[in-house]
Each structure stands twice: as structure tokens, then as C-alpha cells.
């Protein structure tokens, strides 16, 4: 069972599988994001309180969700790599970090663009946006720590450890920020995502969420190939694959 697992996680196998999977993920993503955007922007009815501004949720919520999902992926891959010494885990963690950071940024920008008409200001220290901002800082920490080491293998392991520490911290940050916010402003701010959303609004949102996940899978595969190649530059299989 373990040998099978190690073979599955062997770099050449991962390199080839990622190449095979990426187009499928991206095609699915294109279909779902395309449907979600058209249905969400054109056909879904405007919100009775927020009007058409609520449509920003179709890009904000998937970005925010993905920012957390990518961080978790990064931490879990790093933990697996540290504990069971599966080197591909480091490559996955390294590949997930910049993708996650970009979607964190997207969630922040779209969130504050939504905030301007709703709160009258781009930035209102809303607990979710504040957590998202701290998440961005955590991403920066992990990415710069990896780059700071001259020896990439050590950078990988240090960054993986920081990722694990950060993922434990994320719920604490979220809880403390929510607590802090309730202390200072009360729940007066309008919020995204009411519990009862009619289907006509919900379907495109679900499609967007799934589409973003697929997109993440596809881009992760693409980046993963680069990371694996960099780590295996000296390996025989790379030389054979590149032999003229």
C-alpha cells in the first residue's frame, strides 16, 4: 500500500499526471465560470436590498473561499511532505502559495469595491475582510521565507512549517477579529451571503465556486509541473525526457 503511494507521488508520475489533468480542469473551469458569470450577471434577479451591487458576490465569494482552500492545500501538502518525506508535497505547497495569494488579493479588492456602495467606504474593518488581510500577510510570510533561503530544500521545509503554524492560526485570527469587531461596531454592517438565497441567485454562485475550484486545480497542475521540474533538474528522468 505504501509503496504504491510512494510510486503515485514519484516526481515523473506527478509531472505527467499534472500535464494530463490540467486541460480537463481548465475546460471544466471555463464552462462553469462562463455559465456562472452570464447567469449571475444577466439573469439572476437583483437583490432587494443591495440591488445589482450584490452581483459582486459572484466573484468575491469564490475568491475568498479559494484563498482559504489554497492555504489549507498548501499547509496539508507541506505537512505531508514534512512528516512522510514525500518531496512532491513541497512542490505542491510552493505551487499553491502564489495562486492563493492572488485570490486573497482578489477577495480583498472585490470586497472593498462592494463595501463602497454598501458601507460608504472602501474599507470598514469588516471582520471578514480584516481576516482576509491577515491571511494575505501570512501568504507573504510563507512566500518570502521560501525565497530567503539559498538552499531551496531548506526553504521548502521552513516554508512548509510556517504554513502549518499559520493554518492553526487562521481560525484563531478569524475568531479574535470577529470578537473585536462585535466589541467596536456591533452587527450594523450589511453582510454578504444571507442564509436564504433564492435558487436563481444560488445556482450561478455554486457554479462559480466549483468553477474556481477547478480553475485552482488546473493552474495548480501547471505550476506544479514547473516546481517538480526545478526540484528534479538533476534527475535521470528529466535528462532523458529532455534529451534531444
Amino acid at each position, binding site marked *: 500500500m505504501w509503496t504504491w503511494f510512494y510510486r503515485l507521488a514519484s516526481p515523473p508520475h506527478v509531472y505527467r499526471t499534472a500535464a494530463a489533468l490540467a486541460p480537463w480542469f481548465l475546460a471544466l473551469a471555463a464552462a462553469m465560470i462562463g455559465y456562472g458569470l452570464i447567469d449571475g450577471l444577466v439573469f439572476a434577479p437583483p437583490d432587494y436590498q443591495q440591488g445589482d451591487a450584490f452581483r459582486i458576490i459572484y466573484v468575491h465569494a469564490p475568491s475568498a473561499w479559494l484563498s482559504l482552500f489554497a492555504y489549507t492545500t498548501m499547509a496539508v501538502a507541506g505537512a505531508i511532505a514534512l512528516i512522510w518525506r514525500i518531496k512532491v508535497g513541497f512542490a505542491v505547497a510552493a505551487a499553491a502559495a502564489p495562486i492563493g495569494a492572488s485570490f486573497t488579493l482578489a477577495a480583498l479588492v472585490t470586497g472593498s469595491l462592494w463595501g463602497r456602495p454598501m458601507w460608504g467606504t472602501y474599507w470598514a474593518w469588516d471582520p471578514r475582510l480584516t481576516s482576509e488581510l491577515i491571511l494575505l500577510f501570512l501568504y507573504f510570510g510563507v512566500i518570502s521565507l521560501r525565497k530567503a533561503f539559498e538552499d531551496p530544500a531548506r526553504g521548502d521545509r521552513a516554508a512548509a512549517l510556517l504554513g502549518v503554524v499559520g493554518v*492553526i492560526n487562521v481560525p*484563531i485570527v478569524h475568531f479574535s477579529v470577529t470578537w473585536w469587531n462585535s466589541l467596536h461596531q456591533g452587527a450594523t454592517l450589511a453582510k454578504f451571503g444571507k442564509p436564504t438565497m433564492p435558487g436563481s441567485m444560488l445556482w450561478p454562485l455554486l457554479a462559480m465556486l466549483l468553477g474556481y475550484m477547478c480553475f485552482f486545480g488546473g493552474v495548480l497542475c501547471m505550476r506544479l509541473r514547473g516546481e517538480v521540474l526545478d526540484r528534479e533538474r538533476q534527475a535521470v528522468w528529466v535528462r532523458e525526457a529532455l534529451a534531444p
Partner: protein
Amino acid sequence: MNVGAWRAMRLILQRELCLSFRRPDQLLQPLVFFLIVTTLFPLALSPQLSLLRDMAPGVLWVAALLSSLLSLEALFKVDADDGTLEQLALSAQPLYVIVIAKTMAHWLVSGVALVVMSPLVATALAIPVHAFATMMASLALGTLTLSWLGSIGAGLTVGLRRGGVLLSLIVLPLAMPMLIFGASATDRAIGGESPAGALYFLAALCVFTSSLAPLAASAALRITLE
């Protein structure tokens, strides 16, 4: 003949304290920094007492955070530079014993000193005397938590030439919950409300980091010592 973990911890603690008291200037620098930063705020904002009282907990906590961070960079780096960290790592003691002893020593010389000095700064920032007890308790818990978090960051950046900025980049986001609870405990005490809730959360954070950080920091050291 073997040396137990407690004895080893006591020995390292003794070594650290001895080293810090041989260098009193380095002991005082973070404290002076704390004083200077807290002086900056009234100068930059306004010396109006009512305004100061509103800002005081935040100012106090941010200054404490920064000055603690300042001395954290050296936690493992000095020993790594002169080769004694390798000797400690090869001393047949588990790495976390070393981490715990060194972090406690750091807290004793930086955190406790900050707590002791805080009433002075608090008076200058117009914090009423009845809030001193809460403020000092929260600072004690907060600086201890920060020392633990910092030990992880210091362990991760120990081999790097310019680790200082990176250390702050790593540790500050992790320290934000602590800042929130600490500042609001102080804030509530000033306003005459019960700070119990915030203090409990702060204590919980402190216990949580105290139990996990030594493991994380020793894992970090094992990676960076290579």
C-alpha cells in the same frame, strides 16, 4: 550520570540570564525603545489627556509588541553565529528543552522588564491607576505569548543573513489575536468595565502557544541548523 531535562533547563536558563546581565546595554535597549516609541505618539497626535487615554492601550501594546520583537531576532542567532547552538543541539537534550529554556529566559529579561516598566509609561499616557493591574497582567500574558511565537519565527530565520524584517513579517500576523485581546482588556479596564473575557482569551492563547510553540520552534531549528 545523565542530566535530566529539568536540570538541563535550569542550566540553560542560568546561562542565558548570566549572558544577558553581562551585557546590560543590550538588556536596556528594547526598554528604551519602548519608552521612545510611546513618547512618539503624544508628540505626533496631541498631548490632550482625554485623547491620549483613548489611544493609550493601543499605543502601549503596539510599542510592547515592537520592542519585544526587536530582541527576538537574537534569540537563536547569536548562538548560531558563534557555534554554541550546534553544541546545544548535540547535548543529548531534546531540542524543545533548549527552546523552552531560551524562550523563558528571553521573556524574563524582556517581557518582565516591560511589565515592570509599564506603569511609568501608563502614567505618561494618562491611563488611570485602577487599570494598572489589568494592564500589567495582560502585558505579562501577551509578552509571554509573543516570546513563544517569536521563538518559532527566530527558529525559522536563524540561518538567514537579513532575518530581522522577515522575522517581523512572519511573527506579526500570528500575534494579531494577542494584540486584539490584550489591548481590549486594557481598554475595558480603563473604561471601568470587566476585562475578564479578554483576559481569559489572552490566557487561553498563552497556554495554547506555550504548549505548541516549543515543538514548532524545535522543528524549525532542526530545519535551519542543517
